């Protein structure tokens, strides 16, 4: 083994399976040749042949010897040029029209619990718009004493709150009800994001308009886009923690996420978080809108559809190592992932490395917030033999994240929505990580 320690910087994507086996067997000399052959600029240089040390240390690079960039070279900052691989991506073949499609967040490369605004997943029903906030209005009407119109200036004068919440599409992991269908965590779980949202509580606005506390059982939220997407929200939810928000992660909402105003409906599936929000109506019956009567209905084995399935139940996933990644070497790894529940806080996350036979309890970062992502970590020393990694979350109601066969026993395989099953990642002897179902 090299005196300079682990050659983890090797561009292993240039290695074939035999070479990887060589690395794992401790035969690393050939790596220099592989590196020399590498044409991409991302590869770190190899250890000098004479063994004096790493050229990254011994040969001072230009950035250490030269003058760097001035301030405001990028007035609105951008990620490093080396981070280009982490982008929102569509799942090929899932939809056929970009305006009614979804892009998935690259969970495999994210840290902590906050989703950067530029990587937040997208779901549009009839295309997105960048709406002039000076011309945007919110109307609150229906079973209220005073139907009112608010400008953005009005709303932003009101008592604001900032809260961290996850948003997950009801169809997240929906492609995997029957079998494994997609390769990476971006596509299995990437219709999931988490932000600090700032806005006014919906209850503040409902109170301001004097809503009918006796008969007003439901709220309709409507968007200003072409689809004017509408969803029914139960009044109990509306008065609990629903927000009318204009900001995410410290800046105004992104146009793709509803600029200048969206509903934040913690714990409820993403479609209820109406973007470009223009109207709130109070009523005494649900509305059975298209996206709660024809779509976002869960097909059961007996042929009935469940309607108004809104709550996102407790779920978790390991984001690293995950499908499409590669463990080059045996040894220590920090297994890390995300857990969340639409019914409250995450209480505990357990991790198995043997396909669910034995479990250890992971460390949770910080103190879990209600209806918010929680990051978990656990130490793992990989001995180089095949493994199956799983995580299992438990929320504050005591609900334990189920296995896919348990869900199928009740809901069949055709539901599309609300698949919160335990995810399995197989680690092959070669170090290749792939998506599998083990239960």
């Amino acid at each position, binding site marked *: 083994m090299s005196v300079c320690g682990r050659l983890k910087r090797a561009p*292993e994507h240039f290695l074939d399976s035999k070479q990887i086996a060589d690395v794992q067997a401790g035969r690393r000399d050939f790596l220099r040749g592989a590196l020399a052959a590498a044409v991409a600029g991302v590869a770190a240089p190899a250890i000098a042949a004479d063994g004096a040390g790493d050229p990254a240390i011994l040969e001072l690079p230009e950035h250490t010897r030269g003058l760097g960039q001035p301030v405001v070279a990028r007035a609105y900052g951008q990620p490093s040029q080396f981070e280009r691989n982490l982008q929102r991506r569509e*799942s*090929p073949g899932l939809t056929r029209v970009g305006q009614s499609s979804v892009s998935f967040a690259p969970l495999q490369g994210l840290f902590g619990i906050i989703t950067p605004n530029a990587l937040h997943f997208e779901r549009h029903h009839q295309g997105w718009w960048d709406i002039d906030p000076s011309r945007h209005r919110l109307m609150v009407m229906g079973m209220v004493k005073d139907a009112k119109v608010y400008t953005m200036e009005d709303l932003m004068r009101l008592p604001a709150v900032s809260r961290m919440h996850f948003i997950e599409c009801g169809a997240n992991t929906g492609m995997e009800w029957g079998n494994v269908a997609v390769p*990476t965590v971006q596509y299995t779980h990437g219709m999931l994001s988490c932000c600090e949202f700032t806005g006014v509580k919906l209850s503040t606005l409902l109170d301001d308009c004097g809503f009918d506390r006796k008969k007003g059982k439901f709220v309709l939220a*409507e968007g200003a886009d072409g689809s004017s997407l509408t969803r029914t929200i139960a009044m109990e939810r509306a008065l609990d923690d629903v927000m009318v928000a204009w900001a995410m992660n410290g800046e105004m909402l992104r146009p793709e996420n509803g600029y200048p105003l969206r509903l934040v409906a913690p714990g409820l599936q993403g479609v209820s978080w109406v973007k470009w929000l223009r109207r709130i109506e109070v009523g005494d019956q649900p509305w*059975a*809108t298209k996206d709660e009567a024809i779509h976002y209905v869960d097909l059961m084995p007996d042929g009935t559809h469940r309607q108004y399935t809104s709550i996102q139940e407790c779920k978790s996933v390991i984001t690293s190592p995950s499908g499409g990644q590669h463990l080059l070497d045996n040894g220590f790894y920090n297994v890390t992932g995300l857990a969340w529940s639409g019914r409250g806080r995450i209480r505990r996350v357990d991790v198995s490395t043997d396909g669910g036979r034995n479990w250890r309890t992971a460390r949770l970062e910080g103190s879990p917030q209600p209806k918010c992502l929680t990051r978990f970590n656990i130490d793992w020393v990989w001995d180089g033999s095949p493994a199956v990694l799983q995580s299992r979350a438990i929320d504050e109601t005591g609900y334990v994240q189920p296995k896919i066969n348990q869900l199928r026993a009740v809901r069949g395989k055709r539901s599309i929505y609300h698949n919160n099953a335990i995810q399995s990642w197989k680690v092959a002897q070669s170090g*290749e990580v792939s998506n599998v179902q083990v239960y």
Partner: protein
Amino acid sequence: MCRFIDWAAACAAMMLVFAADAAPRFPGVGRPATPAEIQAWDIDVRPDFKGLPAGSGSVAQGQKIWDEKCASCHGTFGESNEVFTPLVGGTTAEDVKAGRVKALVTGDVARTTLMKVSTLSTLWDYIHRAMPWNAPKSLPVDEVYAVLAYLLNLGDILPADFVLSDRNIAEAQQRLPNRNGMTRDHGLWDINGKPDVANTACMKDCPVEAGVASELPDHAQGSHGNLAEQQRTVGAVRKAAVADDGPPALARRNACLSCHAIDKKLVGPAFRDVAAKYKGQAGMEAKLVEKLRHGGSGAWGPVPMPANPGLPEKDARVLVQWVLSGGL
């Protein structure tokens, strides 16, 4: 006669009411909505048809609008699966009678809108607010009735001479094939609802079914592009080691492996058999490249090799050389 204490309580209550009226919590914020403003935006129609504007439209009128504004996406008969999932199909006269779509139980057809929808208001509301796709809210009320009448006629739910209106829409509702097919009896509506399943937090020697129940099939390996380019270039775990441009990846990406395997016959011959038969024959490489791209039949049994018009010649050549080299 009122006693003093009652009077005092009533007076206090009245003062509270006045106080609330006199001093709103957020003075200067927001203003009353005008009746015209409410009318302009209050377009929702509920299952009990509250909000439905008066009007009417015939199946015949609807067909005309359909052909002009709807068929390009949804197909002449609402059957198209090209742009969106089909609207029409999968329902029967029996379903119209029963109010339950039988094909949803057997599950042997793709779900269409008419198989799922249980409330006619939903279709009226949606066509009115969001259709046509590129010009939402452009259909006048009568045209919405007409288009809906035609759609229901395509599904054999309404007769060809039907004129749908606000006065008879409740009757049409009673013919929807899946009108009794929805349930709200589940635990995912109320935050305190009962979950479907109760897993246990077993920690040691837990029961597990043996083996991997499902993994990504070979033909889907390349379906999401080069996975290596979707991972960060530094970090604890890294890009997949599979090169995306090698022959095996090419074969996966082009779905060759749906019909061929390396060492056994599937739908098509094993690559090993192809190599054994043709290796070293003059001009065979060019012939097979031609066959990969344009299809062929007869050499290996009755199932023809389909054409792959999207396969570039250089990729076809790489694949053929790979198969013939036996370097599998």
